[in-house]
């Protein structure tokens, strides 16, 4: 017998099974996409009355949500005699915490990525990379709890914040969720820079730090940028950490030491007991659809950038 027995076994299997399995695998892939489409259809269907229903328009329209109230203020107070749906405090809150998270998270993640890809010896690298990526597996409710109980107390003791729960507390928690994503993508981008770049730089007399900072990092910049975009998408959509550590007060304030209310936390907090079918209900879905589109586009842009970069570095373009 000149053929290995396993090969014989494989050949003996009827071809129909193979086709069946292939179909099943393909079906599961499409099923997942179908779910995504269904979610979008459902959210869109519930959000649509914001644009079409005259019942809802008596209370709120997308246009009134962006304008100030009669007294010139911007207030998010959906449960009131006269409901007030100004998006401005939510926009400020969301951007405030996202910025804090990115200001803390991005430098840390990128410096860690530079270390791992350029400086760490192979063995250390095998430990550091999975360890940081493990952070992505920590449930956000655990990070939220940590921010709420531990970080909030530290910061208040250290800086005497009046608001125990504020954008800095939540931003630090959020940065823990952003770091692994930015790190992974940035590290991939840095590692994908051809070895010839490094060799050339070192041969010209640059030291390792100069090589990493002035040659490798600029070469990987599109990928690093994509990492930041993905991190931004994660930060803007993250719910649990923000819900727990932000204080959820819809204040019109850019001060990071004051409480805020984000889009995602607003949906999570209010959808549970909202009056079914009311204008408020549709407003929440409208915000949800908006958030869905924003994060979807950010992720799409990020992934498109990453794959383009990868193709270029592998010399396929």
């Amino acid at each position, binding site marked *: 017998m000149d053929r290995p027995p396993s090969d014989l076994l494989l050949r003996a299997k009827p071809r129909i099974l193979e086709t069946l399995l292939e179909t099943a695998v393909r079906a599961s892939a499409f099923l997942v996409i179908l779910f995504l489409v269904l979610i979008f259809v459902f959210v869109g269907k519930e959000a649509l009355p914001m644009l079409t229903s005259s019942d809802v328009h008596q209370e709120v329209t997308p246009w009134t949500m962006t304008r100030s109230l009669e007294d010139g203020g911007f207030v998010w107070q959906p449960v009131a005699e006269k409901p007030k749906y100004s998006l401005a405090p939510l926009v400020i809150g969301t951007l405030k915490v996202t910025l804090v998270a990115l*200001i803390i998270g991005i430098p840390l993640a990128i410096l860690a990525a530079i270390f791992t890809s350029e400086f760490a010896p192979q063995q250390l690298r095998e430990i550091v990379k999975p360890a940081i990526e493990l952070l992505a597996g920590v449930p956000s409710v655990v990070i939220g709890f940590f921010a709420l109980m531990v970080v909030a107390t530290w910061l208040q003791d250290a800086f005497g914040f009046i*608001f*125990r729960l504020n954008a800095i507390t939540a931003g630090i928690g959020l940065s823990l969720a952003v770091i692994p994503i930015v790190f992974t993508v940035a590290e991939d981008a840095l590692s994908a820079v051809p070895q010839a770049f490094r060799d050339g730089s070192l041969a010209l007399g640059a030291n390792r730090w100069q090589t990493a900072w002035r040659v490798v990092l600029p070469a990987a910049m599109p990928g690093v940028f994509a990492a930041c975009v993905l991190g931004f998408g994660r930060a803007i959509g993250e719910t649990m950490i923000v819900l727990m550590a932000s204080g959820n*007060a819809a204040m019109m304030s850019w001060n990071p030491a004051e409480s805020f209310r984000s889009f995602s936390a607003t949906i999570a*907090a209010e959808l*549970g007991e909202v009056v079914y079918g009311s204008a408020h209900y549709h407003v929440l879905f409208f915000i949800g659809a908006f958030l869905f589109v924003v994060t979807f586009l950010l992720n799409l842009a990020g992934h498109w950038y990453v794959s383009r970069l990868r193709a270029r570095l592998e010399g396929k373009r």
Partner: protein
Amino acid sequence: MEKRPISVPILALLLLPGCGGNSSDDTIIIYGRENNSGTYMYFKEHVLNKADFAPNVQTLPGTAAVINAVSRDRRSIGYGGIGYVKGVRTIPVKKDDASPAVEPSLENVVNGSYPIGRDLYFYTIQEPQGAVGHFAGWVLGEEGQEVCQKVGYYPLPRERRSQVKPAGPEKKTITIKGSDTMVILGQRWAEHYMAKFPGTVVQVTGGGSGTGIAALINGATDICQSSRPLGEKERAQIKAKFGKEPVEIPVAMDGVAVFVHESNPIKTITLGELKSIYTGKVTTWRALGSAAK
């Protein structure tokens, strides 16, 4: 280019204490419940007289979270269901300046002398019949009311318990959905009921009063638990679909407690003072003290 990413965080760190203000500040840090919880609606109606909450009221998911936050913040004040209070100081509430200060104790809530006590409800579409009627009847009976006292809520006074005929079971599964405030209470009721009547299964889930009402309208639940009375719009929806008003059954009582940090010297508080704190008219403890005199 090399220096910027490092100097920015350091600069930010140096600026941080500036955002915070000084520690002798006695700004009132106000905590409350999420704006669609039954407790929020109740507080808005009975304490704020339907005025709007100030934008700097921090809302937290669940009474337990509010209590936790208040217990860690010496300048803070919060409110929530009496069933949860621990680690903070509950302050007696006065209806107005002239009235006596009342603790949210069992007898005070039940006899109505505590000014901010409320009912918790079951809602059904039909008059409760069969197994559902049997369960509701048991909840309103001595045993059911004893369970709700054990969980930390208060029993309804006898004369306010509606008469539900405990008919014989015809259905094996009862589903209950609604208020997060009441979910533990509902589960305890279900446990005790199932231990006593092993033939029936009672399933209790939360999700919020609004979710429960939606499920009731869609026919996905037999009983909706709610910590607030139904809204007009919800009543109208039920009427449009079923041609009649839903059945409202008060099943227990709850006092909305007002609490502060244990080191806070405040002795009593009036509903008027609570209103000025939560609407943002009074922003410091010092101002509250002088306004009271």
